[in-house]
């Protein structure tokens, strides 16, 4: 028994250095072979796999373009694509694997907010730059990591961008119906702070994200004083379709605004919301009035030719991110993740919709850290059943 034990200990001591060597490699740092870029994104239902597919298509398009031009530093680019299933635990595993085993030098493509937040923490800890193209929770950049970069808009910023429209319409009392996720409550908090600073009253009503019937809450909202003039919906599950309909059913006649642009492109919107969906305002970062740079026009044409449909706005942001990573590698002459992160921090890049430069505010907890603030926002409004984003009325600016 004792001999067996001694034998075991000897083996462990012998193999321990090997085990630690396997686990502790820093990301990237290889000198030859393809340069790998990690793409963790949802690719299977019930997560938003349609967006994930578009993310993958965009990255592939960008990488193919670069490789046709000879790659970067004489090396080809390679995408490491993995399905994070819209689940936090899976997302964390996927990103960890990409960094430790595949040695990716940068990560693009995370999608769902809560998953992206966890993934950003892992990347920050392992010192590999991660870029968010459309993940909105404030916390992602509020952690002030030098490895987390966001081209995407974020919750509080959207609230701020909505204010001029809200003030122009003269709304005095806004009710935010928020789902109990970090997106919903984050959006409600952001809206409250920004609106109240400008004299607009905000009441928040939180509901479980997968609620099947919101009419009791909506009845209560109807009975509030002073009367509500705008109902803002911050949800990504079925309540986002149910609320406009159930609000009209309980007799709420105020204006309704969706917190993000699902009425503009979701095929289920008109099916599920029906008539009640007409006249619902929604903010979007894309419209026929969006100004594209030459790079932007090039991307739009290339994507449409390759995939048969026009790219959504977030595809533009993602394309920009891949190109920025390539620029950074060229600038520092190396594929070292830390050097790439340093280059990104100070880079000025002529993107698809404008010049991208990351800004950082020193206040702890401020979401502006490696955050781009140059997105163009539009407010749309469908005037007829069935109108999608390209046909809806642009009411602002």
């Amino acid at each position, binding site marked *: 028994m004792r001999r067996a034990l001694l034998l075991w200990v000897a083996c462990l001591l012998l193999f321990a250095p090997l085990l630690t060597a396997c686990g502790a490699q820093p990301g990237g740092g290889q000198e030859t072979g393809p340069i790998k870029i990690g793409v963790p994104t949802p690719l299977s239902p019930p997560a938003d796999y349609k967006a994930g597919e578009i993310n993958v298509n965009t990255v592939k398009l960008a990488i193919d373009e670069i490789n046709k031009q000879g790659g970067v530093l004489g090396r080809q680019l390679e995408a490491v694509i993995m399905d994070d299933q819209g689940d936090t635990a899976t997302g964390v595993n996927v990103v960890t694997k990409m960094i430790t085993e595949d040695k990716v030098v940068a990560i693009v493509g995370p999608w769902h907010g809560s998953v992206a937040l966890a993934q950003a923490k892992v990347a920050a800890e392992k010192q590999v730059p991660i870029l968010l193209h459309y993940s909105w929770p404030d916390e992602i950049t509020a952690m002030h990591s030098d490895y987390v970069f966001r081209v995407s808009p974020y919750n509080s910023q959207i609230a701020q961008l909505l204010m001029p429209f809200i003030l122009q319409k003269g709304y005095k009392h806004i009710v935010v119906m928020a789902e109990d996720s970090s997106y919903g409550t984050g959006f409600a908090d952001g809206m409250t702070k920004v609106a109240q600073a400008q004299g607009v009253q905000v009441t928040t009503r939180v509901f479980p994200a997968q609620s099947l*019937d919101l009419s009791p809450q909506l009845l209560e909202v109807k009975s509030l004083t002073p009367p509500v003039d705008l109902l803002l919906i911050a949800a990504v599950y079925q309540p986002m379709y149910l609320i406009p309909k159930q609000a009209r059913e309980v007799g709420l006649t105020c204006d309704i605004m969706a917190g993000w642009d699902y009425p503009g492109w979701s095929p*289920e919107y008109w099916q599920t919301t029906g008539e009640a969906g007409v006249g619902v305002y929604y903010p979007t970062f894309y419209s026929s009035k969006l100004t594209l740079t030459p790079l932007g026009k090039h991307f739009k044409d290339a994507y449409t030719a390759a995939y048969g449909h026009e790219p959504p706005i977030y595809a533009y942001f993602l394309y920009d991110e891949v190109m920025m990573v390539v620029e950074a590698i060229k600038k520092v002459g190396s594929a070292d993740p830390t050097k790439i992160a340093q280059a990104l921090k100070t880079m000025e890049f002529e993107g698809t919709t404008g010049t991208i430069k990351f800004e950082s505010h020193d206040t702890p907890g401020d979401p502006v850290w490696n955050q781009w603030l140059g997105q163009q926002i539009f407010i749309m409004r469908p005037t007829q059943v069935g109108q999608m984003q390209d046909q809806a009325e642009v009411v602002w600016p």
Partner: protein
Amino acid sequence: MSPFHLFLEILARGIAIGTVYALMGLGLTLIFGVMRVINFAQGEFYMVGAYTVFSLMQNLSLPFYVALPLGMGLVFGLGWAVEQILLRPALAGRIDNPMEYSLIITFALSILLQKLAILAFGPFYQKIPDLLPGNIRLGLVSIPGNLLVAMLFATGLIAVVTLFIARTKTGRAWRAIAQCLPGACITGVRIERHGALVFALSTALAAGAGAVLAPITLIFPTVGSAALVKGYEIIAIGGLGSIPGSLLGGILLGIAETLGSVYLNSAYKDVYGFALLMLFLIFRPRGLFGQSA
């Protein structure tokens, strides 16, 4: 709107939705009472019922009032098949722990049904057209037409089932099995056949609940999970094996949820049901009408 008026409207909605929840509870209580089996897939039969009726309406252009009984009939058949294939071994005495076995196998079935729904219909939200558009005025309160239809349907169905169990020979057989299995055996009741019937009927009830609530809640692959949890809360509140218990338990749950989410905090809507459940477990563990252990 005056506070009293608001209260009445909320109360009316709570009662209405409670009667539909009661259908879920009724199905579960029948299965447990007669078969001593825990059906973890009851929520998925709710979901399958909704999808079946949706599919019949979309693909065969049937009106809702034809698709509903047809859909319930189809799920009845499915429930029968499930009982024969998956649950028969437990009841035929070939398994050591029939309750644990039924729990595990129906849990696996629920996952299978969910994934099949995603494959067949996609993870998207579907909608059945409104049954009765707009609101209906009933005295002081106005209630959405869909909810009124759902409530009438659920109450009617519960009444029919209750009468069936009280007055028919089959109903008597079920009561006998629930009260004393050996005694029922001795008097010649065909246990296995009744087991299949009860299970199939319960799944049909869940399917009906799913279909009739679909215009309000939308249809999607995981819509059954909330229904399942509510069903179990109801049988714990109303008492295992008691039919009036499921009805009253359902209504109590509906009222607790809607009143709580309006007057307390809407974020904790699901908590109110659990709070009610805990109160019952502490002060009256056998539920409203359950038999004392």
